[in-house]
């Protein structure tokens, strides 16, 4: 285990590595979001790497509440869906989580628990 450097502590509040999400991938997702997106500054993916982290944390915490209400210790997809439906600012995700089970085909379909 290595120690996070001074730089990473300053920028990311103690987590190892300056950004926990790959900037190039974020940039790709931004570019693919619409034809309107022309140029993206270097900082924008960096802001998103933090914003996504906060978003994932919030949605995860809310989903976990659903998991506990169902008296389980393993978070399931339906818990994430319930948290989305339950939260106003996540309205933009409602269609995504309700269509998800029908339409998403993933390469690997062995369910595993972490």
């Amino acid at each position, binding site marked *: 285990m290595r120690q*996070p450097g001074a*730089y*990473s502590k300053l*920028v990311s509040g103690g987590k*190892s*590595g*300056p*950004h*926990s999400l*790959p900037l*190039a*991938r974020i940039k790709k*997702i*931004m570019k*693919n*979001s*619409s034809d*309107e*997106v*022309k*140029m*993206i*500054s*270097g*900082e*924008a*993916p*960096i*802001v*998103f790497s933090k*914003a*996504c*982290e*906060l*978003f*994932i*944390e919030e949605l*995860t*915490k809310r*989903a*976990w509440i659903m998991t506990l209400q169902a008296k389980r*210790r*393993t*978070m*399931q*997809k339906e818990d*994430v869906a319930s948290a*989305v439906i339950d939260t*106003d*600012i996540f309205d*933009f*995700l409602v269609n*995504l*989580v309700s269509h998800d089970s029908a339409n*998403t085909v*993933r*390469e690997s379909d062995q369910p*595993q*628990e*972490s």
Partner: protein
Amino acid sequence: MVDNSEASSSKDMIKEQERLLPIANVGRIMKQILPQNAKISKEAKETMQECASEFIAFVTGEASEKCRKERRKTVNGDDVCWALGTLGFDEYAGSLKRYLDRYREIEGDRGQNRVNNNSEENNLEENNNSLLYRNNRVERERDDFVV
């Protein structure tokens, strides 16, 4: 020998990977915010991946619309912060502004976009890579560390 169906399904897999954040990173963020004994199903992580990409697209759409109205070509960090505030993610906007300010402090003018440059793609990647690698060599190895 690779037949057509194999080739096209591996292309699909690549496209799929490109539109989502890596499941390892997403899973790690989820794990870190939950109690130690919490478990997360693979499907829940996959759903979170989808939601995160949709989040990026949603916020980017708002930010780029602002740029269009103001006749600016480049979506910058402030635009993203503004869009987050507008879309109801005010809580994030606050701590993100601080994050962005600290980043700008460290990077100085390097952090700002080299705007309207034909080789923008290359410049941005170099910019980000130098940010990652220049200040602390150790950070580069971080990508190898998978929980």
